[in-house]
Structures are given as structure tokens and as C-alpha cells.
């Protein structure tokens, strides 16, 4: 094992480590769980705030007259999300559309961080004393699970709210086989079926973005300068598609899951 290989391993490892912060009290009480990933929290909060402020300003300025170009862009985005929601979700729930919009734009912005050169922020922040920095929050399982578990919470909430506790329980027991006698088979299947939703949501987004990030890091390891360009550019262009599709998938599946929660089978 040469030292170069070791450097490479260290480089990759460094890029895949979050910036930890913890209070001694939390660490003592919770151990490894008591850590906060500062980079994920800060970047996602900044991006979410940008999204919120921009949309808030646009919403304040929105007129029903002739829209400005910027307003048109926002409206196109709104109508895109609204159409997705209308196509999939047939109930009336004022939360679904804003939720879908937030998910779509926020995840897209976080994914977009993947297109910033991998070394830019870590290097800059390293020079001011921050040892680790991962710029793409969606490559952190904490974030993807935070979102998918929130959605899962909403799924459970609306299932119980719309169908009643008994109705929801009945659905869990009588599906996929519509017989009370098969409840012992149905119940585990249903639970797995429900649990698969948040897990797949979180892992899909995480997996795609994490893999993309790793590829960027690996490309950055190539020692010949023009290979950076030849490999990095096509991957970045391809990645534009991926980050968009992933945010779209997360949004659409959220709407679909919540729609299922509203509809009795």
C-alpha cells in the first residue's frame, strides 16, 4: 500500500465526513447519537431560507395583472407542482400542495450543491478552521430520513384522520388478502408495506446523491488536469438531470403516499 493510495483514501474519507458538533451533556446522555451535523443543518437551513425568502418576496409582489418574468418563473413552478398534485391527489387538503412545493424546491436546491466543485467549500472553510464540510445536505442520511419520516408521520396522521383508527387498522389487517383469517399474514405485510415508504424515499434520494458525490470526489482524485474536465463535465451535466429527477420523485411519491392515505381501498 503506497502512501499515495492512503492519501486518496484519506481524501475520500475527508469528503464523506460531516462536520460534527456536540454538547458534552448530549454526548454523555446519547453517545454517538448526540451529535449534530453542522454542515447539513447550516447548508439546508440557508437554502431553505433562500427558498422561503425568495418565494415570500415573489408572493408579496404577485399581481393578477401582467406578471414580471421572475413572477412567471415562480408561477410556472407553482402550476407545475399544482398540476402534479391535482393529477395524483383527489381529496382536498390545503397542506399537500405547499408541502410538495417545499419538498421539490428545497431538495432541488440542496441537490444543486452537488454541482459546486467538490473541493471549493471544504478548502475555503478548512482555511478558516472548519475541519470537515459536506456541501450537499441530501448526501446525509439524517436529512433524507428527517424528510421521509416527516412524510411518514403525515401518512399515518391522515390515514387515522380520514379513515378513523379502526378503518386504518382494518386496512392493515385486511390487505392484501381480504380475509380476517389471513390477518396474521396481512398485518406483517402491511407493516412492511408502510415502512417501506419512508425507507425507500430516504434511501433513494440519499443513494443517488451520495453516489453522485462519490463519483465527483473520485474524479477529483485523477492526477491529470484535463481528465477532470473530460470526466467531470459530462458527469455534472448528467447530474443536472439526476438532481432534478430526484427532487421530482421525492415530491411525487410524497403526494402519491398522502393521496393513498386519504383514499379508502
Amino acid at each position, binding site marked *: 500500500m503506497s502512501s499515495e493510495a492512503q492519501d486518496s483514501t484519506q481524501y475520500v474519507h475527508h469528503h464523506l465526513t460531516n462536520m460534527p458538533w456536540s454538547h458534552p451533556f448530549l454526548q454523555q446522555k446519547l453517545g454517538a447519537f448526540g451529535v449534530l*451535523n453542522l454542515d447539513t443543518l447550516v447548508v439546508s437551513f440557508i437554502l431553505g431560507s433562500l427558498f422561503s425568502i425568495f418565494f415570500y418576496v*415573489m*408572493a408579496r409582489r404577485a399581481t*393578477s395583472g401582467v406578471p414580471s418574468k421572475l413572477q412567471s418563473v415562480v408561477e410556472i413552478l407553482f402550476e407545475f407542482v399544482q398540476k402534479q398534485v391535482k393529477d395524483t391527489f383527489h381529496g382536498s387538503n*390545503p397542506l399537500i400542495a405547499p*408541502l410538495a412545493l417545499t419538498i421539490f424546491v428545497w431538495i432541488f436546491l440542496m441537490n444543486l450543491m452537488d454541482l459546486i466543485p467538490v473541493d471549493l467549500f471544504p478548502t475555503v472553510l478548512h482555511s478558516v478552521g472548519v475541519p470537515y464540510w459536506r456541501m450537499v445536505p441530501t448526501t446525509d442520511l*439524517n436529512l433524507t430520513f428527517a424528510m421521509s*419520516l416527516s412524510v411518514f408521520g403525515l401518512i399515518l396522521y391522515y390515514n387515522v384522520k380520514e379513515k378513523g383508527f379502526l378503518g386504518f387498522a382494518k386496512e392493515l389487517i385486511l390487505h392484501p388478502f381480504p380475509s380476517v383469517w389471513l390477518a396474521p399474514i396481512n398485518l406483517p405485510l402491511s407493516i412492511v408495506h408502510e415502512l417501506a415508504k419512508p425507507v425507500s424515499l430516504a434511501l433513494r434520494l440519499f443513494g443517488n446523491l451520495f453516489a453522485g458525490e462519490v463519483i465527483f470526489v473520485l474524479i477529483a482524485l485523477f492526477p491529470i488536469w484535463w481528465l477532470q474536465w473530460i470526466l467531470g463535465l459530462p458527469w455534472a451535466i448528467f447530474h443536472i438531470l439526476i438532481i432534478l429527477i430526484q427532487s421530482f420523485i421525492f415530491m411525487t411519491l410524497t403526494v402519491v403516499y398522502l393521496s393513498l392515505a386519504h383514499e379508502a381501498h
Partner: protein
Amino acid sequence: MDLNLTLFGQIITFALFVWFTKHFVWPLIIKALNDREAKIADGLAAAERGHHELGLSQDRATELLREAKTKAMDVVDQAHKQATHILEEARLEARGLCERMLKVAEEDIVQAKNAAKISLQQDLGHMVVRGAESILKQTMDAKVNDRMIADMIAEVSFSE
């Protein structure tokens, strides 16, 4: 890479942004969109109505034009008739006037002729008297005189 407290931090952040969007962003933009939709629908309806009214007005205008044409033609016809009538009357009047003037002229002529006749008869009488005087001066042959007078009278009568 492990799950840690960040999870809860992110859940709170996520809830915060969704709440913000739901309360401060979505309703405003949807309102603007719906308002514009209503405006456009109104505008389209108004345009449709205007179009319809234009069609109606055009129909009415055509109708009016046709009526006006018919009326104008009637007026022209009547005017023609009146003109012919006036012309006819004028002609009749002229003819009457003409005839009356002719009659007057004829009467004048007759009068003049009578006057001339009377004056001629008077002249002739004088001439006869003078002739008779001169004859009487020369001969007093009664027979001859009688014949001469008779001839003269006959002459005068014939020449009438």
C-alpha cells in the same frame, strides 16, 4: 454517516419551511393565479360578447342600408312621377294659354277687318257721292245713272 440528532433538527427545519410556505407563500400566489384566471375568463367572455354584438350590429347595419336604398328608390320614383305630372300640367297650361292667345288674336283680326270694312264702306260712299256728283255734272241721264249705280252696288256687294 450515522443517524444522530441531526435527524430531529432537520425534521424541525423541514416543518418550519413547510409551515412558512403553506401560510405565507402558497395562498398569495394561488390568489394571484386565480384572480388572473378569472380576469382572463372575463376578458374572453367580454371579447366573445363583443364579437357577437358586432355581428348583430353588422346585420342591423345591412338591414338599415337595404331599407334606406328601398326608400331612396321610392323617393326617386315619386320624384319622377311628380316631375312627369308637373311637366304634363305645364304642357296643358301652355297649350291652353296658347289657344287663348290665338283666340284673342283672331278676335283682334276680325275687329280690325270689320273696322277696315267700315272705313272702306265710308270711303266708298264718299267716292260714290263724288262720282255721282261728277256724273251728275256732266249727264243727267237717269237710265245711265241707275245702271251705273246698280253696277257699282253689285261690284261692292261682290267684292265683299
